[in-house]
């Protein structure tokens, strides 16, 4: 990323501790508008905690988190979250339409406008025609699409995703990855993606932040030199994809000792 471009999100010397336990230490990085950035690392190194910081759900114990130059003091409309456990994050008593409507209602979007926004969002996430289905009547992939639709209803500048495809089967996961890349290309939304799947991180991202555990800190930031648009077969057979996969694997394995 060019130095002329101002960062959308920046973290400066951020520490997070719960009681006497330091979870994240000395975090310094910037996220630029429109990029896809993934966070990988051994379990327990603070990937999700970093996402909660960006969301404003958690205040840093030291240092600062800022969004477009202003300090983050709490959740904001511009940052939306997609949780891994879609089954718990959706309202079971509301239909697909009602779940998307929730975000619009809170934002005070008037009724008639809401309807057209809902149709638009459900179409964008591949759920056209499923307006009246309840979450329990949908597959896991559809439920996660619905959660993404609800997040997009906030009209966010940044989409924070916490292992969103971790609970899905391989085929569904691949199609959702492609849909997400398509979405990022079309809307220009910034994506901050927490995952433990290294191939997924490479396939989606412009950059990958590798965290080290105890306490959680940045080990390395990897650039992903792969061209876009990406393809499940061609991209994953690319020499630099394989080389990066090797490097990331060594990085995560090495951090576990």
């Amino acid at each position: 990323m060019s130095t002329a471009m101002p960062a959308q999100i920046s973290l400066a010397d951020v520490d997070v501790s719960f009681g006497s336990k330091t979870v994240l230490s000395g975090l310094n990085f910037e996220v630029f508008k429109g990029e896809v950035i993934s966070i990988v690392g051994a379990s327990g190194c603070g990937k999700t905690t970093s996402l909660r910081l960006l969301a404003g759900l958690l205040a840093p114990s030291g240092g600062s988190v800022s969004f477009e130059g202003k300090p983050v003091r709490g959740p904001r409309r511009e940052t939306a979250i997609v949780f891994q456990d879609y089954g718990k994050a959706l309202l079971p008593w509301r239909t697909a339409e009602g779940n998307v409507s929730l975000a619009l209602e809170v934002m005070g979007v008037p009724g008639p406008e809401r309807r057209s926004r809902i149709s638009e969002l459900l179409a964008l996430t591949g759920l056209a025609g499923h307006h009246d289905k309840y979450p329990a009547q949908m597959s896991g992939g559809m439920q996660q699409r619905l959660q993404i639709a609800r997040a997009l209803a906030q009209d966010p500048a940044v989409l924070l995703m916490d292992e969103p495809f971790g609970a899905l089967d391989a085929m569904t996961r691949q199609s959702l990855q492609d849909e997400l890349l398509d979405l990022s290309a079309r809307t220009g939304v910034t994506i901050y993606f927490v995952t433990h799947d290294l191939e997924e991180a490479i396939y989606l991202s412009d950059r990958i932040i590798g965290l080290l555990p105890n306490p959680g800190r940045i080990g390395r930031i990897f650039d992903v030199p792969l061209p876009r648009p990406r393809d499940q077969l061609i991209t994953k057979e690319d020499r630099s994809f394989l080389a990066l996969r090797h490097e990331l694997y060594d990085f995560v394995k090495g951090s576990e000792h």
Partner: protein
Amino acid sequence: MSARKPDFRPFAVPLGLVLLWEALMLAFPTASETLAPPHAVILGFFGIVTDGTLALQTAQTLSSALGGLAIGFTLGSLLGAAFGLWRWFDRAMQISVESVRLIPSVALIPLSMMVFGFGTRMEITIVAFTTQWPAMVLARAAVREVEPRLMEVATVLQMSLLQSATKIVLPSILPRLFVSLRLTAGVAMIVAITVEVAANPYGLGAAILAAQISFRPEVMLATLIWTGVVGAGINQVLLTTQNRLFRHSLPGGGGSE
């Protein structure tokens, strides 16, 4: 399939037993003061239906049971919800609540009779006192078991307190509150009949006792069976309503149901 063609097999055993009872009573005629053959019970039933006493007694019992339930369920649920929301309040009230709760409801009959005399009011008071405890315990659990992820969704969407109460908390706990209503309705019927048998010269309970004292086993048994039918009817109405209202939120609603 089973809804179209009613299955009569479960009725075979009770029907067989009734026929056996009739046959035995015919074979060995007795002038029993406690037993009557089924045909006499049926005749007795028609007798109290046609002279209007059964309708009056049913109305008396139902008004006490449902009136007491309305008060007890409402008070108990509100108190339980407050306990669920504010743990300090729960702790502050714990000893007071536990000591009053352990008083057996029947032991309150003399006190209630001293205050209100015979009649509906004293019965309603005891029913309300007894039903509020299970309603309180279940409402407290319902509030505590609201999915934490949904509360986080409320935070991310920057919901106001009123919005999260009406859009998240209330719809989450309604199915459980309805289950609690069904349970306490059963308790209300039991307590109402107990009070009538023990002290209050009103309603179905008093009618059962009066028939026994005046050596009319056929009326006693007819009233007894009718009391069971009324209880089952209330439960069936509530169960049907529950299935209609909460079809989507009860299964997979994230609870222990």
